[in-house]
């Protein structure tokens, strides 16, 4: 029992954070959205070169052979910096899925090309109505009737579904499944799709935790600068207490997200409830944090000019992606009412669904 990150884990996360700090300032988001773009190819190249995409890929397949807990801090930083490029979905969801199909040549090839930064793979899942980044991907993972297909982007019909978040390019994807596109039949696909959903929810939670921290950092900074009635507004107790309340939410989402990562990958009743708890807690923290940041910024918070809205919108989008709060409350309830509860079960694993 040791609920601390290893030195390796924090070092790798620090490297990622430093890269994002240097390469993903809000000015770059502002420039991208002004240009109507959603991706910065140069930044993506640097991320690829850092080798972060293969964290969850076995060493035999060219990755680092690590686990979710090794990626969770990096996903949190991606949320914090509002990274538009698909590092989290690629490293956290798509590649471990492809790596789980080593005997499927097309999957292995897509894995290799993605690891090399030559292409990306977009992920369709019944839990999400649309596919993110399908236009920029070389191939799209597409569940059809429970089976899993990998279709070339060129063979798919994409219908853009504009999101409030300028960096989330969503699409309805239609494609003709065939024996050629099949990479896992329904039986083989079922556990993989479960893992995809759990990883999606886990890493969305990690990003939401980062978003929560970012919005509060922005609000704290502004509250220290902005003066009204002769003193910084951060000296007023009302503002202090708003920000402290957000901080409490953050502090109690954090260990849940990390604990969920520490027990991944997994699919028991306990583990799924913890992942859902992480998504709920981080989502609530991020939501309250973003709204509080708007409020602390006053009218500025409602303007495009101030940075808050980028994180508010990402928060809104990720709150509904990979399971809504409603979906995740249901999974938490399934565990509470379907398995023993009590202090001796904090770290219990497994248990089939009731």
């Amino acid at each position, binding site marked *: 029992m040791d609920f601390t990150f290893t030195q390796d884990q924090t070092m790798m996360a620090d490297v990622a954070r430093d890269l994002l700090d240097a390469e993903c300032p809000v000015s770059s988001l502002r420039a991208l959205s002004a240009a109507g773009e959603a991706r910065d190819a140069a930044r993506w190249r640097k991320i690829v070169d850092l080798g972060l995409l293969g964290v969850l890929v076995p060493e035999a397949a060219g990755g680092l052979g690590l686990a979710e807990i090794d990626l969770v801090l990096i996903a949190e930083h991606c949320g914090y910096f509002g990274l538009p490029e698909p590092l989290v979905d690629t490293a956290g969801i798509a590649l471990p899925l492809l790596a789980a199909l080593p005997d499927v040549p097309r999957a292995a090839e897509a894995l290799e090309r993605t690891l090399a930064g030559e292409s990306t793979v977009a992920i369709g899942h019944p839990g*999400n*109505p*649309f596919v993110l980044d399908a236009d920029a991907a070389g191939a799209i993972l597409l569940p059809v009737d429970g089976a899993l297909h990998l279709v070339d982007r060129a063979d798919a019909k994409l*219908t*853009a*579904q*504009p*999101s*409030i*978040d300028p960096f*989330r390019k*969503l699409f*309805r994807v239609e494609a003709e499944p065939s024996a050629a596109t099949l990479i896992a039949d329904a039986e083989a696909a079922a556990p993989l799709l479960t893992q995809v959903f759990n990883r999606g929810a886990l890493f969305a939670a990690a990003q939401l935790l980062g978003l929560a921290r970012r919005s509060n950092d922005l609000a704290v900074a502004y509250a220290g600068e902005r*003066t*009204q*009635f002769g003193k910084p*507004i951060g000296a*007023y107790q*009302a*503002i202090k207490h708003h920000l402290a309340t957000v901080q409490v939410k953050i502090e109690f989402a954090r260990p849940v997200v990390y604990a969920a990562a520490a027990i991944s990958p997994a699919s028991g009743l306990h583990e799924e409830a913890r992942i859902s708890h992480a998504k709920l807690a981080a989502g609530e923290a991020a939501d309250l944090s973003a*709204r509080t940041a*708007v*409020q602390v910024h*006053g*009218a500025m*918070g*409602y*303007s*495009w*000019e101030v940075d808050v*809205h980028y994180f*508010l*919108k990402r928060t*809104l*989008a990720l709150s*509904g*992606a990979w399971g*809504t*709060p*409603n979906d995740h*409350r*249901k999974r938490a309830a399934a565990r509470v009412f379907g398995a023993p509860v009590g202090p001796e079960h904090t770290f219990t694993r497994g248990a089939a669904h009731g």
Partner: protein
Amino acid sequence: MNLDYTPEQQAFRADIRAWLEANVPAAPLPSFDASRAGFEAHRAWERTLNDGRWGMVTWPTNYGGRGLDLIEWLIFEEEYYRAGAPLRVNQNGIFLLGPTLMEYGTPEQRARFLPAMANGEEIWAQAWSEPQAGSDLAAIRSKAVREGDDYVLSGHKIWSSRAAFADWGFGLFRTDPASERHKGLSLILFPLDAPGVRRQPIPQINGEIGFAELFLDEVRVPAFNRLGEEGQGWAVCMATAGFERGLMLRSPARFQVAAHMLVELYKRHQHEVDGTVRAAVVQAWMDADAYALSIYATASRLRAGGHIGAEASVNKIFWSEMDIALQRTALAILGARAELLPVAPDAGDVDGWLDSYLFSLAGPIYAGTNEIQRNIIAERMLGLPRA
């Protein structure tokens, strides 16, 4: 106490309902904050309303009104929102400046400004805030220097709603250069196309431009444009802000219609969401209902000679928090589709909920933040000591 409408009130409701059914545009007008075309379409609608003498039913007949009381005003608003009629592009004029003109304006000022306000010829922007004077409105630095029969205005206004396209603005200016805080301010009206006025639109969170910055560089206006006595601008402005926070600007009907839409949205998706969402829908309806009852009670009291006090602050907090809760409930029902813009092909019934949610976040901020409102309630209503 009698909570039934009189036959006259019922007849009035029938009249406005019939007129709206005949006149409300079939398709929604484009937003007045998004384009000049949308702005002008709303100006035309104001003219249509005025032609039917429905512009401001509480105004005296000589300014195009019907001289009716606040209960009829509430009935008008109920029917207006129920019919989905266009938002009022001239709300800064008709709801804020208009009543102030009637209270503080000279007969000449009323004659000059009210008819053109009523028929939409002149659309008004407000210009309260300055970069360093938001919640702390008394920190205003913009000045008005008297030169003969004119004032020369200079300064920097911000968060001026409608100012991107409007014709006129009104705001506070320091007429006594030696004055501080609330003293030595005057309320002055100025044309937005006057030489020396530069407008800088402020894009909002949703990409629209409901606000602008105004840079005033030696803008010359006649002293006639000062409303109220010189140096009394703060008192005049507080009366106006009281109206703004209070009765007129946030009609209960607006929230009741939103609650109605929420109920319909929920009914379509009730099998997708759990009991917390159901309870939130019912709560939204109850809150909108409570707000309506409260405003009817205030209107009845005002009609009987009462005055609005700190309850303007109470109302502000209630409707702004209710609005956010209501919009959040809608997003909870929409689930993963909540992030979609209405133009998305698969948007389904996302309608304008997302935009309304973002707009609702401005509720606790504008017209005095809710923090300021709570201070006011604590100090003026509950009598707690000032810090």
